């Protein structure tokens, strides 16, 4: 399409150059162009958090950012942060605490939780709840997720 713009970005450590339609949002690009289907689409209007990815070190709603806006950016997804083992302690805690059921929210939830964990702050349960309050989970009722994050932050209770 003639509107497509040459866009270059780094995704999970790899440089990617593509011609991208301006209207394509970042998660559609990751899923459909790069086959990185770990980032999910739940609402496509920035509320549910299932599409959370990390751009230049900050977590963003991948459905509210256009792929062309990521030109020159460093994007990290659930796939990259799993391969790098950065999420390993959190993923282990999620498994052990059954902090996921259907798992559709989990990639976004892990990225949101890790965003708090890597500040190094000894967050309370209330602060953990507040930090993930932009990520919708219909299955768990959140308590197990809070438990898992708390365990990574404070060690086993």
């Amino acid at each position, binding site marked *: 399409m003639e509107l497509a713009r040459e866009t270059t970005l780094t995704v999970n450590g790899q440089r990617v150059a593509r011609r991208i339609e301006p209207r394509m949002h970042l998660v559609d690009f990751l899923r459909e162009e790069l086959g990185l289907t770990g980032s*999910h689409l*739940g*609402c*496509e209007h920035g509320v549910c958090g299932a599409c959370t990815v990390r751009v230049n070190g900050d977590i963003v709603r991948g459905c509210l950012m256009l792929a062309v806006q990521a030109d020159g950016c460093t994007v990290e997804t659930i796939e990259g942060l799993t391969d790098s083992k950065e999420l390993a302690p959190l993923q282990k805690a999620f498994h052990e605490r*059954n902090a996921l059921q259907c798992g559709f929210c989990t990639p976004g939830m892990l990225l949101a939780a890790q965003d708090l964990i890597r500040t190094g702050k000894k967050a309370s349960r209330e602060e953990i*709840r507040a930090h993930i309050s932009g990520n919708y989970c219909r*299955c768990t009722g959140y308590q197990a997720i809070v438990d898992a994050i708390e365990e990574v932050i404070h060690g086993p209770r």
Partner: protein
Amino acid sequence: MDLSKAQAAPGVIAVVDGRAVAEYCTPWVAVLAHLKGIKSPPQHAMAIERACWQGEACAAVIAESRSQAEDAVALIEAEWEELPVVVDMDAALAGKPVIHPELGDNICFKREYDTGGVDDVFARADVVVEETFRFGRHTGVCLEGRAILADYNAGEHSLTVYHATQAPHMMQDIFSRHLNIPEANVRVITKDVGGSFGIKVHVYPDEMATAAISVLLRRPVKFVADRLESFLSDIHAREHKARVRLACSKGGEMLAFELDDVTAIGPYSVYPRTSGIEGNQVVNLIGGPYKHQKYRAKLHVVFTNKNVTCQYRAVGHPIAVALTEGIVDIAAQKLGIDPAEFRRRNLIADDAYPYTSPVGLKFEKLSHQRTLAKLLDIMRYTELRAEQARLRKTGVHRGIGLAAMIEVTNPSPAFYGVGGARISAQDGATLRLEPTGMLTVLCSVTEQGQGTEAIFAQIAASAVGVTLDKVRCMTGDTGVTPYGGGTWASRGAGIGGEAVLQAGRALRSNILDVAAALLKLDKAELDIAGNAVVNRLTQEAKLPLAEVGRVAYFRPDTLPMDFQSELTVTRHYTPRQYGFTFTNGMQAALVEVDPATGFVSLLRHWCVEDSGTVINPMLADEQLRGGIVQGIGGALYEECIYGPDGQLMNGSLADYLVPMAGEMPDIVCVHLETPTQQSQLGAKGIGEAGTAGAPAAIMNAINDALAPLGARVTQMPFTPERILKALGKV
């Protein structure tokens, strides 16, 4: 409709209307013979000439990409003549106007029940209380939208459907009958599903259209509902207005309940389970935990021009429990008896079973009194009441709410099968010992995240005698698993689990036959433990299962001439002795209401649940917690709001509120275990219990907090606005 511009748009493969789809998919009528008098008009996969609700598809665009399809949809030109709508259930009941003239009125289903003697009891009772409660319609909001990929193969006249459904075999039957493809040529494959909660157990017109279009185009066709489409077309539930009355003696004995319930279900009864079941459940479940003998009920299920409603997690229970427990608290208040004590006096005694309720429900064995005692103990009820009284003096308005309940689980064919629905009440499991000593489990119950496969693996491992790491479980493929009902009505563990257990015990016996032949020992001397055949008494390892597998599959020539090993076993299970295997439970909520803002803070929530044998305590807790939070959503936040023209006003997650982590409380769960004697496993269902009881507990807690202020709320969800209105502040 002018489809020509859309047909010419880039990437478009086809644009079809309702007539084109009807050539490939026959319409359906959602009625059940045991819901006497239920009626609904024929419904097509896509509207033909007339659409009855916003969300009924009129045309479909098939394109190479989603964006191309959505671009082309905008090019479809339709000329509409607006017809009068009916959105209010009272107007619907009055037939103003009648949506389907050929049916005569808007009454889909009507039921009356009367034990007799109700008027007498109410006339003579010392205390009679009455209240009208309203429940907003809400929906499942699965994080993953409904999704289907239908792939028709013209050469074989076969259809393979990758479908996010809870009931693959039911869908196989329905695709077969409505698309006229032989049943054995239809395969439904259900892999990971992003949440279902009852939403994905129904027949959706857009999904039927997708399959029909695949046949029409002879190619794979995919449809995924986006969030707006989900709000407009995923089934809604729970829109009720009900008046409930309770008669009591001054000594605090409940004598009779009376119910008058109206529920609005949209313009069609939903196929194939019907939209009559939810109201029917409300009639059945009112007063369920209590000893009263007299009961009268009236139910009207009416058509409206809103989205259709049908069975959603806990089906009718949240309504029935809130009505019962709401009026029970009002009676306790009027009698001046503590709500916990009032319940203790009236709950059915733990030694009264088997017991038949006034509406004819048969309870095998419940534990209401033990449950209440346990709940009051874990929540430190007496201390909490004292703290509440202290805080009230300082202007802090806390409320404590209790909710007792019974719940339908493990339904027999009495639920759907007897009414003529081709919905299986039985499930099957196949267990196969692999040559390496591993165990493959195939089961007809599906996995939506609740942990079905995990507990089946546990049951199979224990039944056969292998470690958990040796078990692989497969579900959700009509081409692979035994035939069965799938996941709904809290039945997976109790029914599918029992089939796995029976198959596992039979396989264990068959493995020992092989081992006895191999070892030339008496089978009675042998057992299986830790992946090996062992001596039953000493537990000394005799033969690894991998060796049993190797010989049975590759060297059967070394076994006796007349011996044939059978290392694949299938068993099925149907609950038959009781129509439903009832569970019981009780929840409590502690809330704080801010009278200045109307905001409710959830401080703590407790649940004591008796669902029979607990297979996996962590998964059981998590089913309760997730269910409770879903119930809290209905009580405090969630409502599909319609305008007077039948348009949904809040079809986005920004406008339709769901529970998020920041507002939810920590939830304490305790399990009592009264196993059902109907099965060897003893498990009852647990998946819906949390959702069934939470709204009532939250409502009673809010009203307990508001009581000293002379206010009461009766319309869910209890938004700040409604609480401030009850307080007379807005």
